[in-house]
């Protein structure tokens, strides 16, 4: 058993994210923005890396010990904003291919 990074010769391994956003009708957009900024500052990201084992979103924060031991890999640079847009088409392709 080992870690396998798919697509290293091609576009790179797909990366999923834990994201946060502020909705248009938010009552306190400034406060929300401050929270987001707090969540992505170096200290918080280091805490996340240590506590729940996710890759930090900042390049200047190193991942946790275990993840670091798996080494570097090529990441897919796809803009995640596109996922929602292309999802229906992807589902159709899956349907046609018989994927369940």
């Amino acid at each position: 058993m080992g870690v396998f990074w798919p697509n290293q010769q091609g576009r790179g391994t797909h990366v999923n994210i834990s994201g946060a956003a502020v909705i248009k009708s938010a009552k306190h957009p400034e406060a929300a923005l401050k929270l987001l900024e707090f969540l992505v500052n170096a200290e918080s990201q280091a805490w996340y890396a240590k506590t729940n084992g996710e890759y930090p979103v900042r390049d200047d924060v190193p991942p946790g010990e275990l993840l670091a031991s798996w080494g570097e890999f090529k990441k897919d640079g796809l803009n995640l904003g596109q996922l929602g847009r292309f999802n229906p088409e992807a589902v159709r392709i899956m349907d046609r291919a018989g994927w369940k």
Partner: protein
Amino acid sequence: MMTATTVLSRPSINLWGIGAGVLAVVLALPVLVVAGYLFEPSGEVWRHLVETTLKDYVVNSLLLMLGVACGVLCLGVSTAWLTSMCEFPGRGVFEWALLLPMAIPAYIIAYTYTGLFDFAGPMQSWFRGVTGLGYGDYWFPEIRSLGGAVLMLTLVLYPYVYLLARAAFLNQSLCVLDVSRTLGNGPWRSFFKVALPMARPAIVAGLSLALMETLADYGTVQYFGVSTFTTGIFRTWYGLDNAAAAAQLSAVLLLFVFTLVLMEKGSRRRARYHHTTQRHQGLDRFRLSRGQAWGAWMICGGTLFFGFLLPSGQLLTWALTTAEERLDGQFLELILNSLLLAGVAALLALMLALFFGYARRLQGGWLVASAVRIASMGYAIPGTVIAIGVMIPFAALDNQMDEWMRAQFGWSSGLLLSGTLVALLFAYLVRFLAVSLQTVEAGLGKIRPSMDEVARSLGSGPREILRRVHVPMLKGSLLTALLLVFVDVLKELPATLILRPFNFNTLSVRAYELASDERLADAAYAALSIVAVGILPLILLSRSITRSRHAKST
């Protein structure tokens, strides 16, 4: 006297009819909203579905129903007959214990069986350890399959048939069975020739409830990767982003439901069953020989083991390993929230069911009949579809109200309906009224019309007859209705997930959240609580059925 009776009865009869009609329209609102999407053009997506996945949805849904129907009939009727009419060691325990699987949500039993029987589970690991075989060297039944889904649903849904069949067997006038015996019929012949045909309305009612649950199930088939209508609707709505096509799939699903409802009514229409006497003697159960008793014990014990003991034992094991970190103040709040929701919903559903059932008895016209039919359609509609059907009109109403309040008083009323428990309770009523209604109707059907006629001739109005004659006679059925809805609401997941107010969590939602993170062991704690809370009323229920039988016999 004569004029007084006429004056008293006429207007109230009309009131029953009109009330039933209006209530049915309100209850049908979510379905109508969803059905309204039928007229949105979605031809291209529909064509895509027909070309690719629709056949799977239809075939799998049908096979699932067929399998579950066979399963629940075999388990439900046989255990009901054995525990009510035969005497064997342990019968008194099985009598109530056989209801226990009902407290386990189908998706939870699916998680536990997957945990037990998949490749890395204890069963296969043990097998590999003993035989020394490795992956791919041996055949083992795949639990995550259509057959597995049939098994899971059968194990938790058979109590619907058991419960109603048992009530019917116990309520059968023993004189009929005695006559059958004096005419030379043995236990088997008495069962097939007399008891079973007489219990048929109750058995078919239980079967149709179980099949409606099957059609509405999402958690189990989704987890097992079996494509049915419900997973198809989710996939079309959230995956293909096409509400219109999802609503069209729902409409096809509605055809299935409608067929079931017609089947159930049709089974009852051909004959009416009234017992000629309400006098019962003490039950003289069939004495079983040693071999027969062993067989009876195996049937009841096996059902109980696989339907309850095994899965809840696994849950308990998981829960014990996580108890320390899961037991906190939040947990108490989860329990209180769940009890509150389930209790209020069950009570409201019972009141509505009594109203509909009685309106129908008073007024057999097409208006009331179709009102009742419409009101009981919600049961087979997936909770998600109902939730969205509730959300759309309620949110629109809330926004209009809010706008008006702001314009008039400069004050925002917020989300009065869609942001509170009102929306959720309404969705529960739409979804679970059929459970109450079928039980109440089956109970009312067993009371001879001559009882009403006697009471009427003695000068009682319809409401007084309901209060003083029917409700006391129906006590068993009413309790059954109350508790069936209570447990169903406790287990309900998708509608709760979508419609709950912010920061309002229930046990089922918490169990789902943890399980969908693959934290099965952590989810076990909330799941086990659902089971535990669901068990107590089931015991009471079983007791009351037996007691009402005893009360009659003395």
